């Protein structure tokens, strides 16, 4: 069965390592915070100037001076730090953040990503996405592999305006987990539960690399 948003987030959470500083984008990536393994120390960065995002507040704890990049009210984790937007992007650009997880509309076999603009639709802006994808040490994309009309979003070449080039290293979709290889191509690592390799082949427009038996994802 294809994964839902929570399933994708849960699978991505398995990529976290103890001591990681992580930036989570808006949408599915935000849900990854719900699946950080017990006892693992992960510090979440918010581009608007915070390291150490805590839980959502109780009604009494709500503080208009504490929000995340999605403008939601939040709390501070123990040991958190606050800073300016310039310092925040110095962390991002300077390679101090270990992992960036973000959503996408399209990803292609060269690791190019499109996630900010659809021609002839209202353009809202790229926010921090271009800075993040240009600089992060490791980028995982959480996305839907197939759109509502059945078209693959893992492409040979992105068709939408790009956010960044040759930057995505790993993609987790409702159907599978893929590494994007340095010389191009989606290498299939895992299948979603009860999804066949044939279905994945059918749902991938870009170059797909399949070697040996492909295991199913495991959720602990």
């Amino acid at each position, binding site marked *: 069965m294809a994964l839902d948003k929570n399933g994708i987030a849960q699978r991505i959470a398995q990529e976290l390592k103890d001591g990681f500083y992580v930036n989570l984008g808006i949408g599915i990536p935000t849900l990854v915070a719900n699946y950080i393994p017990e006892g693992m120390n992960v510090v979440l960065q918010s581009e608007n100037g915070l390291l150490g995002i805590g839980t*959502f507040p109780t009604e009494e704890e709500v503080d208009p001076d504490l929000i995340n990049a999605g403008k939601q009210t939040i709390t501070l984790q123990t040991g958190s730090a606050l800073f300016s937007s310039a310092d925040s992007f110095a962390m991002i650009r300077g390679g101090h953040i270990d992992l960036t997880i973000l959503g996408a509309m399209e990803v292609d076999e060269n690791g190019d990503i499109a996630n900010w603009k659809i021609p002839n639709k209202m353009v809202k*802006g790229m926010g921090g996405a*271009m800075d993040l994808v240009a600089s992060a040490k490791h980028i995982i994309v959480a996305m839907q592999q197939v759109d509502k009309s059945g078209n693959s979003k893992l492409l040979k070449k992105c068709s939408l305006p790009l956010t960044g080039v040759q930057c995505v290293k790993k993609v987790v979709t409702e159907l599978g987990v893929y590494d994007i290889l340095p010389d191009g191509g989606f290498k299939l690592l895992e299948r979603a539960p009860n999804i066949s390799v044939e279905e994945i082949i059918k749902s991938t427009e870009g170059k797909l690399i399949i070697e040996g038996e492909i295991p199913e994802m495991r959720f602990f």
Partner: protein
Amino acid sequence: MINKVVENADVAVVDIFEGATLMLGGFGLCGIPENTIQALLRKGVKNLTCISNNAGVDDFGIGLMLKTKQVKKMISSYVGENKEFERQLLSGELEVELIPQGTLAERIRAGGAGIPAFFTPAGYGTEIANGKEVREFDGKMHLLESWLKADFSIVKAWKGDTTGNLIFRGTARNFNPMMATAGKITIAEVEELVPAGTLDPNQIHTAGVFVQRIFQGEKYEKRIEQRTTRG
């Protein structure tokens, strides 16, 4: 002791002129100069270019100045929460320049720090790169980006003193410290204005040298865009 205190927001904006370039602090509605925006509405000054990460919402923040058609151009990274904005953009009444958020923050910082330009990897290979000089450093491609400055920077801090020293609170800091450095005239509105010597010098985020005018805001609504609780 230099005294930067002005009586209120209306006095602070008295010489903001038609066609001026303004920087306005804030991320979403967090840390925005609410009182100065109200004064700009009362003053009615038009054709403003506003540099601000976002454009407010329909009935708060910069959104209020869009409604009164005081803004000619917005320079922002994300403007998604505003219907009037969308209407004016699609009808051609409003110009918009979208800049990656980190590049926006650094261009403002550069403007205040006397750095005319710098290279950043953000936007390489995208339409943001059009017309920009590209240079390779350590095998990676970068774009040349130039500084941003403003006729007036309008920032909001938590506490400030009569000499213009500022302390921010929580994520309301965001763009405010850099903008404070990049205005020919910087106007700071604060929740609490105290006499010089009251704030601990070790805790000052923005030194008073960057601030020309300071006042205590009359009231702060601090509207929340996405009230999210864990119940």
